[in-house]
């Protein structure tokens, strides 16, 4: 299958996620993180956070909803059977705390062939309710066995 590149430059509607403290605790627990700033509001405030704070990688929780529909977009035409998650980059800004409303927008930065594989590069930008950037992410998916 030739590589379809129609989606390059496309942006998708913003995805909203409201951060809850139990979700932060659940995430921190499964990751084995025991810092009280992820569990206890007083401990978090004592460290200068506005509320119970999410670990940086909690971005997978609030931003993934911005990525999901993108992969199912017919312009992207993702071949899931041959897809792997190739690379990932996160750049963090303002910490995310319980009660924040995070808005994530997704853009397709590039789709290109290399060594018989298709590289799909998406960027998500997540901001909180004050308009502060909390995380910019680059998601790279690789699809094996394309025609160049």
């Amino acid at each position, binding site marked *: 299958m030739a590589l379809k590149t129609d989606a390059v430059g496309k942006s998708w509607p913003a995805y909203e996620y409201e951060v809850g403290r139990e*979700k932060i605790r*659940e*995430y921190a*627990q*499964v*990751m*084995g*993180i025991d*810092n009280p*700033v*992820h569990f206890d509001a007083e401990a978090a405030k004592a*460290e200068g956070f506005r509320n119970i*704070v*999410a*670990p*940086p*990688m909690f971005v*997978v*929780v609030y931003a*993934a*909803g911005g990525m999901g529909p993108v992969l199912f977009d017919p312009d992207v035409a993702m071949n899931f*059977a041959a897809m*792997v*998650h*190739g*690379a*990932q*980059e*996160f*750049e*963090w800004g303002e*910490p995310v705390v319980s009660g924040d409303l995070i808005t994530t927008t997704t853009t397709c930065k590039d789709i290109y062939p290399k060594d018989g594989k298709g590289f799909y590069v998406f960027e998500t930008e997540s901001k909180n309710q004050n308009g502060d950037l909390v995380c910019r992410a*680059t998601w790279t998916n690789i699809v094996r066995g394309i025609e160049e």
Partner: protein
Amino acid sequence: MSAKEKGDKIDGLKVTPDKYVPHRYAGASGDFNPIHIDSEFAQMVGLPSSILHGLYVMGLVAQSAAREAGGDPRALKRLSVQFRGMSYPEQEIEVTGEVIEADGDDVTFDLVATQNGNQVIRNATADVTYG
């Protein structure tokens, strides 16, 4: 001052995720792809068994970097990784790393996550600021 220098090794971490971690991580993250939670499905698509979520392993790499910089969640500024292999529950994952750049409190690590001699995440670079 971090007093870190290029070439300094970081403590890293060793974790053996129990067999239910992929289920709990699926619940926490919302990623219920059956290759992580259904061994029969995983075998049907050619894997030896169900596999860990790549972003879970990236989470362990993130923790190693943040812990090294003092454990404050604000310490980690940027993390970039390449996923290079499958990893499995009930087998130890080791994260190791070293300093590749140091400018006062701003330090960059190069990290690797290994399981059974396979580098499952490599070329990981983390920018941290020591608090």
